[in-house]
């Protein structure tokens, strides 16, 4: 496996050789920030194209085909369109909050984005409570959505935002509980350690039955957390036209759009980290030849591949299922999902305590 920390350390030493320590940190922060934002937008563009093509195939269509080969240029056209469109300001809106809202949503998702373990030695922030930090920051996004709904002075937006608040607060519980079950297996919340503990066997196999239950629970809760179908009630196109972002246009709408797709990537990334080994290749203990072949595939490819696979499942949900209703959504969480997640956590605790893990 190629260790990306060789490059980062070399760069660090190079900079230290020609400038003081504070300047090195400043320059590194700028480089990291630029790369992060670039990766953020490129991934968002990729996801838009990915979803458009996938949903087209689910629906017996071809999707975008006209601009460039297989419609590849379509996404650039879309981005340019979004950038040059007028940002409409409306009477009766709370101007400051209206403009602030999309930034909060994007800021929350970029911060989580930075915590993801991209590859061997390729991680920006690492805390000893990493996964806890990610969950905490990702829930900040709902504040942006609530603000957007409130500041728009539109009844659709307000209903959408209130739905969103109720939904995200509720589903965070089962999401947290599902991840907690895996933390029990790992015995750590440190992201780097979480990956290394899966060197011989991914957590979904280590934790066997309760881990698989936790994985399913996590997928459902994550779909709800990202406001995607069948839980896309905050937007609920057919009831609330566009829900909380009805009044947004141009790039302020684009921010919501970007963060929606990036949140999809982030929850997929967390699932990849917690259940499928993060960037860790597929290893079978004792099969050294096989493991070596797997190691030939770069770690970043492993991580992105796993994340895209989980995103595929979530996109598949969206284009298959009808939307649930708000009361059904909350009933489902509080009466079924959360009790199951709690019971699953207890089961996992028993398994971990007695060492019934692979």
């Amino acid at each position, binding site marked *: 496996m190629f260790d990306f920390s060789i490059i980062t350390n070399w760069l660090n030493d190079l900079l230290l050789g020609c400038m003081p320590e504070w300047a090195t940190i400043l320059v590194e922060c700028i480089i990291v920030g630029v790369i992060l934002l670039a990766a953020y937008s490129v991934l968002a563009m990729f996801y838009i194209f990915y979803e458009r093509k996938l949903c087209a195939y689910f*629906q017996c269509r071809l999707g975008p085909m006209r601009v460039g080969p297989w419609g590849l240029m379509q996404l650039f056209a879309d981005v340019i369109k979004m950038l040059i469109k007028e940002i409409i300001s409306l009477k009766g809106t709370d101007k400051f909050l209206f403009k602030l809202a999309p930034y909060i949503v994007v800021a929350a998702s970029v911060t989580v984005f930075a915590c993801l373990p991209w590859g061997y030695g390729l991680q920006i922030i690492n805390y000893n409570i990493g996964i806890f930090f990610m969950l905490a920051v990702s829930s900040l996004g709902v504040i942006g959505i609530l603000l957007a709904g409130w500041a728009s002075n539109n009844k659709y937006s307000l209903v959408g935002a209130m739905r969103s608040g109720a939904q995200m607060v509720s589903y965070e519980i089962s999401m947290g509980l599902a991840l907690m079950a895996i933390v029990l297996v790992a015995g750590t919340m440190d992201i780097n350690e979480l990956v290394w503990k899966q060197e011989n066997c991914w957590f979904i196999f280590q934790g066997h039955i309760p881990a698989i239950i936790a994985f399913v629970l996590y997928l459902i809760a994550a779909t709800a957390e990202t406001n995607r179908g069948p839980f896309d009630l905050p937007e609920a196109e*057919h009831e609330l036209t566009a829900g909380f972002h009805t009044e947004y246009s141009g790039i302020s709408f684009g921010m919501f759009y970007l963060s929606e797709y990036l949140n999809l990537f982030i929850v997929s990334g967390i699932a990849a980290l917690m259940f499928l080994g993060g960037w860790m290749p597929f290893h079978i203990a004792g099969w050294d030849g096989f493991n070596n072949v797997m190691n030939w595939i770069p770690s970043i490819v492993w991580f992105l591949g796993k994340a895209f696979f989980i995103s595929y499942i979530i996109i598949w949900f969206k284009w*298959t299922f*009808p939307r649930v209703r*708000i*009361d059904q959504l909350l009933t489902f969480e509080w009466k079924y999902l959360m009790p199951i997640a709690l019971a699953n956590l207890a089961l996992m605790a028993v398994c971990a305590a007695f060492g019934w893990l692979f």
Partner: protein
Amino acid sequence: MSVKDKISKICPSATFEDADVLLVNVPAEDWRALAEALKHDPDLNFDVLSAVVGMDWKETLGVMYYFTATSRKWEMLSVKVAVSDRENPYIDTVSDLWKVANFQEREVYDFYGIKFVNHPDMRRFFLRNDWKGYPLRKDYDADPKLNPIPENDEKNEDNTVSYVKDPNGVIKPIPSKVFEMHDYVMNIGPQHPSTHGVMRFRVALNGEEVKKVDVVSGYIHRGIEKLCEELGYPQILHFTDRMDYMSAHQNRHCLCACIEKALGLQVPDRAVVIRTIMDELMRISSHLLAFGCTAMDLGATTAFFYGFREREMVLDIFEKTCGARMSMNYNVIGGVIADLHPDFVKDVKALLAIMPERLKEYHTVFSGNIIAKNRLHVGHLSKEDAINYCITGPSGRGSNWSCDCRKKHPYAAYDRVQFEEVLLDGCDSYSRYMVRMKEIEQSCRIIEQLIDKIPEGDIRAQVPKIVKLPVGHWYTQVEASRGTFGVYIESDGSKNPYRVHFQSPCFNLVGVMDLCCRGNMIADVITIGAALDFVIPDIDR
């Protein structure tokens, strides 16, 4: 005792005329007593108010009512009520006896200015509240200066009025409000993804729960009935394709049948069979669209495309024979306009071959899903309400009301084919949806029986170049995709009709939105609307 004797006993002032439907002439002051008897008397028991037609007979204004008795083999009766006061015409309301009259009387008020005493909500229905004059009156002044193109937005009309007779016999307006003081009113439409056209609902909410739905209609009102009065009979045919464009063939079939009935014209057998097949193909296409739109309104976007995939085949069949995919303009007085395309039989058979398998697929992808099932079990409409609100078609049959015109008084070739009237007793949106799915099977069955037996011969009868109907009036019904479609024609013997009224099924469907939605959630308003499956141009006309 016959209906005639019974009515003369209750209302001695009534006179009778024999038309295609027995006509009772009643003075306005006796009308209320007769209406109550028609509804409640066990010998009369006319439980369905099929049509309410506003009329202007120049000296008098009035209303033609068409009733149906479901218990007596769909026997029909028409009642003519006229008032001579053109300034303040008052007629007693029947909206408390037949709930369907609520919107129907508002329509009559809108076009003729007849005020219905004791009607709870006497507002205009189609036109703006600041409209001057009553456009379907014969003395209406169409000067654009009176009603210029408005430059301001229409104000939300929260005030309504009810005309009530006080103990001294003086009729006074009692003002009231549409919504309560502190209602949170959300606007759905006219531009909204799920109102299937420019329909507007004002919904009073309590959290997400619906307290009241106020229907604001008329955004696509084109005054078709008014236009008809200035055109010859062959010229008015094309309007029917533009009302319920998903029932274009059936609607036009109905209008042609009404004119043919008035002329006493015999339609060639080939045309009769072609019309029947086309009607059923139209029904398949319409129900496929209803499937797709229901699925999409519930968020299952993929199912929508599956429905459209098969609908495309039907539209291709239409395109080959009629030359158009929408607004086919195929039926004409006395038959059909063009012979079938050589590929017709082959294409139809290809469609019939795949449909059963595809219907199973729809069930797998959409209605078999637990989320869809839970979402669709809303919008309860009991059989009594369905009859009272005259909810015909798949929506009525989803409430277990047997109301299929094709069975009740068979027309065209429906008496020579075997098919079942699909009835479900769920009384909710799911039943309405399932009735449509099963009706597709029955439509396929009808087409299967006819497709190899299309007789040879003429495709239309000899019709005079200038069609003139004798003096009189006629009412004809067919089963359109969304329910019973009725056409009323009154002729004064000239080449233009004196009055044409289209009794559209969707007009009644939208009347139950308030009843069905109350107590449900906002999301259910969309579901209920989708399962009732109204088409807006059919409501507004």
